[in-house]
């Protein structure tokens, strides 16, 4: 922790409690990003553990390692954990750690809202997972298809934890989305026009819009399920004349943009890493940016491709099939531009580069199978088989490659330590091999007719060998992840010092010292180029005539380009060399408001009858208590001086 504390340039506190308090009340995007990172890493491990349980159960036919009820809880929570907590959490981590630095800002637009987003995320994730302790985790799949979530069909608390947990996480995401849209619009350094922004920031910007517009749809659908379960409404009850397909429409109108919420930041990471380790600018920058925008817009018009088999009729299926295939075009454009970025570059195969290259390799496979699903006649056979499982793991678990690329790439900025390259490469190869050997054969199983979401399967259908093979391979991925953890601990303890610019970076975050001081930039840099730092080092056109080291131009007198400058030792509120740097005060109100909301939501789960594990009407006391805390926190927040 000492290293983490140092990482964000905070003066050490005299006591442990004071130190803890400083984290609980922080509004600094860097510390919030680190908290997001630690939390989501924990969930990545939990989701991975759940994956191993699934693979153990499926390692042989007619296996009885898990009973069906447990298996259904495990696969449901694996999906929810990986999507909402691990990948979305890592995206929030990188938004916090990287976006303000890349645009030359001192913090996000609304620092306290940012803190609220994190605490809402943490408490929401706890509500979602509380089912494990309360006897019944959600077991309806991450998609929770009505009427499977009906209170008569499933009287356990599982769906209630599902509904309230996702609702809480949605609040966190919408708040984060608003915050980063405002940050990117308002807090860019002078001269950084939109088309000088680094591509990761662009993708974070687009993703933030997606979150703002997608999650409210889920929120409405979840409220309807909640009313059905708690108050006897009939939004999704076919027995009372409802059409349960309404849920699927709402869920996928959220759910497909959600896929791009997951993947666009990953594409942003790749677009940062490839140019740096090719020593070339990103090929076709505007095409990559516009492809991202185009994908985001299209993502709202493709939801029914999850529903080709529900009987929408040939016209709707044709239209949604075609709109879905259209997404393949901007995606292809991105992949080709990345490949052209590598073309004639000076490639350096560092660990982040390896993960980035692997992302391209596996994402291409996921893209090809995606277009296959979009082909309606073929999808009638593929849907709900392991072919789909293979597809979305090549996409979503493929994103994990981009996440690891991002971690290896930005880790030195925050710790001032390099991760070990040898362990990094071991991690990479274990993970890459394990990934392909686990998910690759799933394509075959799907084409051979193995349906998904099955806790057991009979012997003799030709599925036995490959299932056992996949289960064994999954442990290679686990082993790779373990190597990463060892690497991380080793780096924090004794990693080689990184300095400000270990990779010969191109963007503003590499100008400032590692770890960044509390105020990020002693002086806000004036930007005149895309890849501003590169332009400062090598000239606007990267003319090779300039010797790199000689042409390095310091940012300003106050803030030398690399090394632990004297500026980094200043506490945030102090004056940086006579210039007063204004930073927001810490606040505990965001934590209180988030806790109050989450407690109220837990109270809503507790409204269920005592026989199933709830508190019955007593639950209202919990709801009321949560509401009270929320109001108290919001009141204090409103009148707190911003500092």
């Amino acid at each position: 922790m000492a290293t983490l504390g140092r990482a964000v340039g905070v003066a050490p506190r005299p006591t442990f409690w004071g130190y803890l308090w400083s984290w609980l009340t922080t509004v600094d995007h860097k510390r919030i990003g680190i908290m997001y990172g630690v939390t989501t890493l924990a969930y990545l491990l939990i989701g991975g553990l759940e994956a191993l349980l699934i693979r153990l159960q499926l390692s042989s036919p007619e296996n009885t390692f898990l009973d069906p009820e447990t298996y259904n809880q495990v696969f449901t929570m694996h999906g929810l954990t990986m999507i909402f907590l691990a990948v979305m959490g890592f995206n929030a981590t990188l938004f916090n750690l990287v976006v303000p630095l890349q645009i030359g800002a001192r913090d996000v637009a609304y620092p306290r809202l940012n803190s609220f987003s994190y605490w809402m995320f943490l408490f929401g994730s706890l509500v979602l997972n509380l089912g494990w302790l309360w006897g019944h985790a959600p077991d309806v799949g991450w998609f929770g298809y009505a009427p499977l979530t009906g209170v008569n069909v499933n009287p356990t608390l599982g769906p209630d934890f599902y509904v309230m947990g996702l609702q809480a996480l949605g609040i966190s995401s919408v708040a984060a989305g608003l915050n980063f849209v405002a940050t990117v619009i308002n807090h860019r350094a002078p001269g950084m026009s939109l088309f000088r922004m680094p591509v990761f920031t662009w993708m974070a910007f687009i993703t933030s819009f997606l979150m703002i517009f997608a999650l409210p749809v889920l929120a409405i659908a979840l409220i309807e399920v909640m009313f059905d379960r708690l108050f006897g409404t009939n939004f999704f009850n076919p027995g009372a004349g409802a059409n349960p397909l309404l849920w699927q429409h709402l869920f996928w109108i959220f759910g497909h943009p959600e896929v791009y919420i997951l993947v666009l930041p990953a594409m942003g990471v790749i677009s940062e890493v490839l140019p740096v380790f090719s020593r070339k600018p990103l090929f076709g920058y505007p095409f990559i940016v516009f492809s991202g925008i185009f994908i985001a817009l299209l993502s709202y018009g493709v939801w029914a491709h999850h529903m080709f088999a529900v009987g929408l009729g040939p016209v709707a299926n044709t239209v949604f099939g075609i709109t879905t295939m259209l997404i393949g075009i901007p995606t292809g454009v991105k992949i080709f531009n990345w490949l052209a970025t590598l073309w004639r570059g000076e490639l350096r195969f560092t660990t982040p580069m390896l993960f980035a290259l692997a992302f391209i390799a596996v994402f291409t496979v996921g893209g090809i199978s995606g277009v296959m699903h979009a082909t309606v006649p073929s999808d009638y056979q593929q849907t709900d088989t392991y072919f789909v499982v293979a597809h979305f793991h090549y996409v979503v678990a493929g994103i994990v490659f981009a996440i690891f690329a991002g971690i290896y790439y930005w880790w030195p900025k925050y710790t001032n330590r390099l991760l070990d390259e040898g362990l990094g490469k071991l991690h990479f190869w274990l993970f890459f091999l394990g990934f392909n050997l686990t998910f690759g054969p799933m394509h075959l199983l799907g084409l051979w007719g193995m349906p998904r979401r099955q806790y057991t399967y009979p012997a003799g259908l030709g599925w036995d060998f490959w299932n056992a093979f996949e289960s064994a391979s999954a442990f290679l991925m686990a082993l790779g992840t373990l190597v990463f953890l060892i690497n991380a601990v080793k780096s924090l303890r004794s990693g080689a010092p990184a300095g400000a610019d270990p990779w010969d970076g191109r963007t503003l975050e590499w100008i400032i010292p590692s770890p960044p001081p509390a105020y990020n930039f002693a002086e806000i840099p004036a930007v005149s180029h895309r890849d501003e730092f590169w332009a400062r080092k090598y000239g606007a056109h990267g003319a090779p005539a300039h010797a790199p080291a000689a042409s390095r131009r310091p940012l300003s007198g106050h803030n030398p380009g690399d090394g632990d400058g004297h500026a980094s030792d200043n506490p945030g509120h102090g004056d940086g060399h006579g210039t007063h740097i204004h930073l927001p005060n810490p606040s505990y109100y965001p934590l209180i408001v988030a806790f109050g909301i989450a407690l109220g939501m837990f109270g809503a789960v507790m409204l269920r009858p005592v026989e199933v594990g709830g508190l019955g009407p007593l639950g209202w006391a919990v709801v009321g208590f949560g509401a009270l805390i929320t109001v108290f926190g919001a009141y204090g927040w409103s009148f707190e001086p911003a500092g």
Partner: protein
Amino acid sequence: MDWLGPVAGDQAEAQRWITWYLLYLGAAVFVFVEGWLLYNITKFRRPLGPGSLPPQIHGHPTVEVLWTVIPTLIVAAIVVPSVPAIFSFAHAPDEAGALQVEVVGHQWWWEFKYPNIVPGKTITVANELKIPVGRTVIARLTSADVIHSFWVPKLSGKVDVIPGRQVNQIWFNAREPGEYYGWCAEFCGVQHAQMRFRVTALSPAEFEAWVRTRLSPPALPTGGPARQGYELFGSRGCGGCHTIEGTPYQGKVGPNLTNIGERSTVGAGILPNDPQGEGLFRWIKNPQAVKPGNRMPNLGLSDDDVRSIVAYLKTLR
């Protein structure tokens, strides 16, 4: 279950063809992209030496147009053959001469009905659907509880089985006689994994003979363990959930057992319905041990009682 190899239905054949077409196209794209990636990785792994930089290329409009147009053409090449297929699947050929069946999905078994197979008569069976070879079958699907999905990969793709007012329809046929596996393909709760069924394609003559047999209820047993089993079926409450035609047992909760003796499996495709009655015995003795969470409770019957009931059920052919 393999739908990429030889299949038996017209729809499945069209789907198989399009899937192979996609796989070839996909393989070409895969080879091109991964090939270019590998080429870059092997060719440009070079330190250029201090002071020199690779060419700083920012982009090229012509290639951008090129790699926007080429994927568009690939998409067009997929859309062109797939749209007619989508519409052909929506309308059954030979609608007038088709065999009409009704499918009802239950947690976790299938009910099949042949409404008005002869005027005024309906045959109801469970988990095993008999169809005549070569004739188009039109299935109308509804659900008694949650969403299921009807899937016989060798014959056709999936269609969801939805509770409420939406009645979906699918057509399929079998070109060759045989037994084809079916599977619920939409997650439907605890025992989704064991909601299986079979479609058996018989020659038209065999099918006609089967229909004739099914139109008259099986004879009541007159003595021996089968008769005891018949009595127990009532006294132990089996008849409250199950229907056996020609008897007072008219329960509608569980599968119709009128033809249980001729079925090849028990418990929605889980246990073999062997001649010795071992499968039936295991099921009735403790259904929760075979298929945990299913709707049939463990009735706590003695082994002798179970054997009698099995003897009775075996006569229902």
